């Protein structure tokens, strides 16, 4: 499936901003079942400097510096991506979760391929015993890792309520867990915390999911959204497999990966420093249009 993606982020400021330094992680990843046919980022006002480079995990990061005084910053990311994923292996054919844990210990590399990057706590995903205990129910001794992970994902979907009011971006994981609610970030972070608590490697994935309009209704322009899910490492043979706890779905051709990291902070689509004194408002519009 080929998608045309348009992702517009607009900041409006109530007083002029003299300068801004921003980090953009908006270019879809190439590889592992998706091929970027075309991608580009437009920025208004025009930056005085602009640099793009892959980060440690292979995400394309664009850094821009704007020196022109402005009241609105508009970042438009356009991409055309061909997605053809292999289907995931049968869950029962993956190695046991204990075996995977042992395998992590034997990987002899420090580069981005090493699953060991993804078993340790981070600022946003600390080790949290209640989340680990919750995850452990899906991983009785000897259970194949993918079977356990899928079960875990489904339980999150069942036990947690999707609720935009339940959390803020700053809400710590423990609170979202207690509240049994949140948005895709919270779902992904909780699933990652549980898996890592058991010593299983899990990455945070930012990306898009195609929304399929209800039967007979037309697709709504700009109504899509950026999304987040989890990749679980299922041993060297099966590798990384995507699971979406928000929708209880195994990742398929409806998903487009932008960036992977240890938590949201590694992949935040837009971050940076602006020199200003007033308030800022943020508007995001996303269009993921299947074109063939």
């Amino acid at each position, binding site marked *: 499936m080929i998608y045309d993606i348009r992702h517009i982020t607009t900041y409006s400021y109530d007083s002029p901003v003299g300068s801004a330094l921003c980090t953009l992680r908006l270019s879809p990843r190439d590889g592992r079942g998706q091929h970027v046919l075309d991608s580009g980022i437009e920025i208004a006002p025009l930056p005085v400097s602009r640099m793009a480079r892959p980060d440690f995990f292979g995400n394309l990061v664009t850094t821009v510096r704007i020196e022109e005084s402005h009241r609105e910053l508009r970042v438009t990311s356009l991409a055309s991506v061909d997605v053809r994923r292999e289907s995931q292996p049968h869950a029962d054919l993956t190695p046991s979760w204990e075996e995977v844990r042992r395998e992590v210990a034997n990987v002899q590399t420090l580069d981005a391929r090493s699953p060991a990057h993804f078993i340790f706590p981070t600022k946003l995903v600390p080790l949290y015993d209640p989340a680990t205990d919750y995850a452990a129910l899906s991983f009785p001794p000897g259970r194949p890792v993918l079977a356990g992970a899928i079960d875990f994902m489904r339980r999150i979907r069942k036990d947690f309520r999707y609720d935009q009011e339940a959390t803020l971006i700053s809400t710590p994981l423990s609170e979202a867990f207690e509240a049994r609610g949140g948005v895709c970030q919270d779902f992904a972070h909780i699933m990652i915390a549980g898996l890592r608590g058991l010593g299983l490697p899990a990455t945070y994935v930012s990306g898009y999911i195609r929304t399929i309009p209800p039967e007979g209704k037309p697709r709504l322009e700009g109504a899509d*959204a950026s999304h987040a899910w989890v990749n679980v490492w299922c041993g060297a043979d099966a590798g990384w497999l995507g699971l979406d706890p928000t929708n209880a779905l195994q990742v398929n051709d409806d998903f487009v990966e932008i960036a992977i990291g240890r938590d949201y902070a590694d992949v935040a689509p*837009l971050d940076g420093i602006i020199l200003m004194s007033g308030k800022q408002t943020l508007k995001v519009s996303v269009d993921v249009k299947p074109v063939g």
Partner: protein
Amino acid sequence: MSERLKESLRRAESRGGRASVARQIENWIAGYDPILGVPDEFMDSDGVARQHWVKFFVALAKYSQKDLAQRFETADRLIRETGMSYRVYGETSERSWPLGRLPLLIDGAEWAGIERGVAQRAELWDRALADIYGEGRLVSEGVLPASAVLGSPDFIRPLHGVRPAGGRWLRFYAADIGRGPDGRWWVLGDRAQAPSGAGHALENRLVFTRVFANLYRDLNVDRLAGFFREFRAGLVAAATRSEPRICLLTPGPYSQTYYEQAYLARYLGFLLVEGGDLVVRDDKVHVRTIAGLKRADALLRRIDAEWCDPLELNAASQLGVPGMMESIRAGEVVVANMPGAGLVESRALLGYLQAMSHRLMGEELILPHIATWWCGGPNAIETVLSDFDNKAISGAFIDNPPGLDNGRAAIPSELDPGRRERLRRAIERRGVDYVGQEIVRLSTTPAWIDGSIQPRPFTLRVYAAATPDGWRVMPGGFCRMSDNIDARALSMGEGVTSADVWVLEDKPVEQTTLLATGDNVRIVRQLGNLPSRAADNLFWFGRYLERAEATLRLVRCYCTRVTESAPDGPSSARARLQTLLTPRRAEDEPDAPVTKSPAEIAAAALHDPRYISSGAALAHAARAAGSIIRERLSQDIWQILGDLEHRLAIPLPASPLPEAELIDRAEGALHTLSALSGLIQENFNRVAGWAFLDIGRRVERGIFTCALARMFADRDATADNLDVVLDLIDSQITYRSRYLVGVALAPVRDMALLDPNNPRSVAFQVQRISEHLAGLPTLRHDGMLEAPQRIARLLDADLSTAEAGKLDNAKILGFEQSLMSLAVAIEARYFLQGSNAVRAETPRGLA
């Protein structure tokens, strides 16, 4: 005391000591009783005193009791007065930092072994870091498990694959060591993030050398200065320019070790900068100075790596420099130590160090370290759990993994059964997060406790610096002694003192200081360019001092009038003074009482810190501004500043003080202030920094004098009112000598505002400010005046053409407002821009 100790004392005595010396020592050490089975620095296991200690005590005992007490007192005073402080994080005030009475003595021959061991370890870690961030052979060849590296929050991914400018990941390393039960020195931990304490070691030395100069000479104590000189030379050699600008990057005055950092910066001649002072352009790091951006070649980093660059590391950091990682990758800045070097502090690595040494150095480790099992490694978890109660359990990478919560090692046998079981389960679940370590009791050393000498456990931090000739180890170190005989409770918190560390040589040692030798020194009269932040704080330092002086003069003048005259009409001098003095509340103290009686008003104006215009508040503000530029203020200035605050920041008396006492206090503080002004006038180097300090004082003095003139020299001013003006501007005598007729409005106005020869007049202040501004660097190339100069020249012209007889309050207010806009223009032109850096709101997924 053992017979053999007595014997050695007798021998010392017969070598020219006096009988009183032996008695004195006997008194001191009568209760010295080392723990059985734990080595002691002073006495060996048979109770025989070691010779170097005997020599020291004999030398010490030659001072009379009284002399010794006085010297100890001097040491205490030096520590207090020079503001040596150890700031406990989160506290706004500083507390004096405890320095023990006795040094730790280490024999030169034994030291040589420590020196070799620490230098070897520094080199090993540097090579290990180069491998970990580079080829990764230790991991690919199976010497080191990947998880033992990647668990560290200090594995800084953006620097993977980078070759550091100057070639080294590590340039300043420290090892915490202690003497173990077998009598050997053991490494307890490694420090590479931003090792602290070296500055404290220098300070300790400074205090002790002033108090016990001859002891150092007689006992052949190794000097520290050479070490710092070579460290500096190492950084210079690593930079690409021949005269590099080196900055010490500090987290700022709220950091626990800020004073140490300021002290080191001053001692090493580095520019003390905060993240906000630096900016990256074209991949190069620059300092924001009053003359625009200036290249920074090398950084001595005291900010933890995570906070260094909000663009690539912790986005919430306000301490760092956006773009620093890119500059490092481009090889444009030397950083000591490189961000990411902190991973050598991971305890997980200790278990693999011997193998790493074989692989990278082809050598055995010279110094052993505490046996350590990383529970992520094969079989280690079984080793630790099978002997659980005899191990100390710590976090492998972070201090508080589940089951450990106070940041310290836990000894399972000392935990209650519930917590012990919880810890065991946590290790079973995720062994990678834990290490088990052998429990070691450390040796004890003599500590001075209430006039006698007692054994106390200690650790010693030893420093190594990369120099052009390889690693060099500081002969000495930072010794921390526990008040408690229980050796395992060591952390620089409650009840820990430090000690100077003496390495004793057989022969007299060479004297060295940071003074360079020979002819290779180029004469420099200006120390680079002044960072904007320093200029800002110097300016405010000057303004606060001047405000404090104004308050004190007002108090003195008011109290004098209160004692001389009864209250009278609202336009009387006394009433007007009272209005001026009636304190304004500080914004955060809206409930401070409004005082009524003259004595209460005056006392509050002197001492009540809740009022922003009180002497106490202003002295504190001056010291706070000063503390940010501490490396630029001499020890003398700092001392007097402390004295000033000490005089003013005292509790308000319960019952009102007599006016005479208040006058005395105001005068006392004024004397201190004039001593301070004298020092600044006489000893402050006349470079840009001085200009800003002086501009600050003069702007403030001009504004105050205008306000005085409006209040006391208005059209209806009485002779008494005019007298107040002359009093406050210190011009009584000049006036009387010039005008024999008595006080009149126009001459007083002339003297206060227009007379360019009166050093207290507004005109005089403006002329000096103009001169200062003309000497400062300019950013414009078109020959046009910059805003501050334009305002100052205009005001100067106004004042020099005005006539006293034609002035009115509106005109005087005009002068005052010009001075205020001059201050604003100076801030806008020279200081860091006022608007705040804010983090962009991050979008949140909606799906």
